[in-house]
């Protein structure tokens, strides 16, 4: 088991800088998820930790030891690939034991480890099959098993569930969570799926175009995102961003006008920064943070275009003016008919961002 520390880690492919100085501290035994849109450098970061990519700048330490010049094989990590990367010509058993056998590990110990991994993952029945004869979920289990057998200090997962169907994904998610509890080992998990990030992580690292946008516990990111990108990325459906203009400031609050919603006004207490009167800003409201008319601090009328009924809740897609809003409502049959209704925004359940996307608190 080991902590993992990234200090000003930079990655360049030729002249292109892909990762711009990442600082991430991962505690021993922690489950950390790297999340971000496609191409933001998640895999690259993970592969640098694994030793499959050179580090162009900065330092990566595992268990307090700087790993920049340590071979991938000697870093004490195991990785589960998105494509599983099983050895196609070997049986499941051989896949699990290959690394140990090649390194002259005592036979009895190899057998013990393989047996234990098979038990943990419930793949005892499959030991004599080849990867081709397995389903996607079973292959994924074998890939994880191969990592377990190594008894690594750190587990790395690169989008391990993205090739599975939705149901299996949920099931495997739970199993990976359980595995982490059982083994108590540091795990770093890459995904572009924010739901996976939210459900699995002790802490989430949100990445965008090679920059670390924010690091924090799932609910901290949800409640208190550092900027508009994180606010939009965490949470599903996405947060609504409503155009607004500052119309009044006092020493503890500002009043903004929602320009696309008939001049509705909201008073928002502030702590740090006070934008100037007339400044264009953005109000962020999560779909689940709209309230019944009159219950909040600012009512806006909307017209529903499409309503998605999920059973427990319904999502109303409302094209109020030029801005599409997504509003979560209690599921109710009576409401299904009426298109026009009013929702209310609470000051404490909304966030402010300036035009560049930085948070205004």
């Amino acid at each position, binding site marked *: 088991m080991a902590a993992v520390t990234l200090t000003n880690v930079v990655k360049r492919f030729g002249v292109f800088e892909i990762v711009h100085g990442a600082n991430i501290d991962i505690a021993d035994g922690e489950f950390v998820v790297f999340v971000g849109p496609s191409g933001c450098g998640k895999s690259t970061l993970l592969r640098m930790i694994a030793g*499959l990519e050179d580090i162009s700048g900065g330092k990566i330490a595992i268990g307090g030891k700087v790993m920049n010049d340590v071979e991938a094989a000697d870093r004490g990590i195991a990785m589960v690939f998105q494509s599983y990367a099983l050895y196609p*010509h070997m049986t499941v058993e051989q896949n699990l034991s290959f690394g140990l056998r090649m390194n002259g590990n005592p036979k009895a110990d190899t057998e013990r480890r393989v047996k234990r991994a098979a038990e943990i993952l419930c793949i005892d029945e499959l030991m004599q099959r080849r990867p081709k004869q397995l389903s996607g979920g079973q292959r994924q289990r074998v890939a994880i098993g191969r990592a377990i057998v190594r008894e690594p200090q750190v587990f790395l997962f690169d989008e391990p569930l993205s090739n599975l169907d939705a149901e299996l994904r949920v099931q495997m998610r739970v199993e990976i969570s359980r595995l982490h509890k059982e083994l108590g080992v540091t795990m770093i998990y890459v995904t572009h799926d924010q739901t996976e990030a939210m459900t699995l992580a002790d802490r989430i690292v949100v990445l965008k175009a090679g920059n670390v946008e924010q690091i924090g516990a799932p609910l901290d990111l949800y409640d208190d995102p550092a900027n508009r990108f994180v606010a939009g990325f965490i949470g599903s459906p996405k947060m609504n961003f409503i155009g607004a203009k500052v119309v009044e400031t006092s020493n503890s609050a500002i009043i903004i006008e929602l320009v696309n919603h008939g001049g509705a006004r909201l008073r928002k207490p502030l702590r740090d920064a006070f934008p100037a009167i007339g400044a264009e800003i953005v109000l962020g409201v999560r779909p689940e943070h709209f309230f019944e008319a009159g219950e909040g601090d600012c009512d806006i009328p909307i017209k529903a275009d499409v309503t998605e009924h999920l059973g427990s809740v319904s999502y109303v897609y409302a094209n109020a003016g030029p801005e599409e809003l997504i509003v979560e409502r209690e599921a109710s049959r009576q409401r299904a008919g009426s298109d026009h209704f009013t929702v209310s925004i609470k000051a404490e359940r909304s966030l402010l961002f300036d035009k560049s996307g930085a948070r205004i608190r």
Partner: protein
Amino acid sequence: MRTQNATAYRFLTPYLLIFAIFWIWPIISSFLISFQATRTVPWRFAPAFNWGRLIGDPAFYNALKNTLLILVIQVPVMISLAIVMAVLLNSPLLKARGLYRFAFFAPVVVGEVAYSAVFRLMFSLDFGIVNKLLESVGLAKIDWFSNVTPAMALIMIAVTWRWAGYNAIIILAGLQSIPEDVYEAATLDRVSKLKQFFHITLPLLKPVIVFCAVLSIIGTMQLFTEPFLITERGGPGGGTETLGLLLYRQGFRSLNFGYASAVAYTMAGLAIAITLVQLWLTREPK
């Protein structure tokens, strides 16, 4: 659907006709000819005439021995060489890959007569570059064309030179179909590059290697060009005569088509038998 098929076959008719006349009929016909005495006209049906002669013919056994000797030495050496070449071609460190690929493939498209002439020159006793090189490192020169062992070696070298690159290109395609992440997984499993080659690359290349081996076996069973052109019709004294040459000599020099047909069928039968044994030996474990 029916009428579509019928139309398709009508379009195919000219091809099928030519295929039947120039391909299927000769195969059947030569089989029948192998049971006829063809030394004198008119040919007559005599089942044991050619096949009986074959069984007792020292020339046949000589040619068979030479062919099989070349087969068991040259094919494995060439395939091994081709694998090494393919791995080098696949190396990310290699510059100008396209050039090498072309160079490896070039021997196949060079005219056979030209290539043989150049080989004869290179290996000539007094003026050849090969003997000059041997002498320059203090070794005795070798009379490649007058002794059986060097002549056989020369045939094998020539065939290997001509076909190793071709096989390397095929194996390269196989190499490139092995996903990179399997090697990455093995690296993280602490498996050395050498062990990766023997435990991952080779097993995954097996189907391609078997394919190359089968092609080479079939090719070598019919070996003709090199012993005909380089060692001058199987010289010295029949020391490099192959089944292909024997067939040629019997069929087109002595015009003994019956015996030549029997030799041809023996070659084909052996090629099939060896290939089947090979496929059986390298079958996927169930």
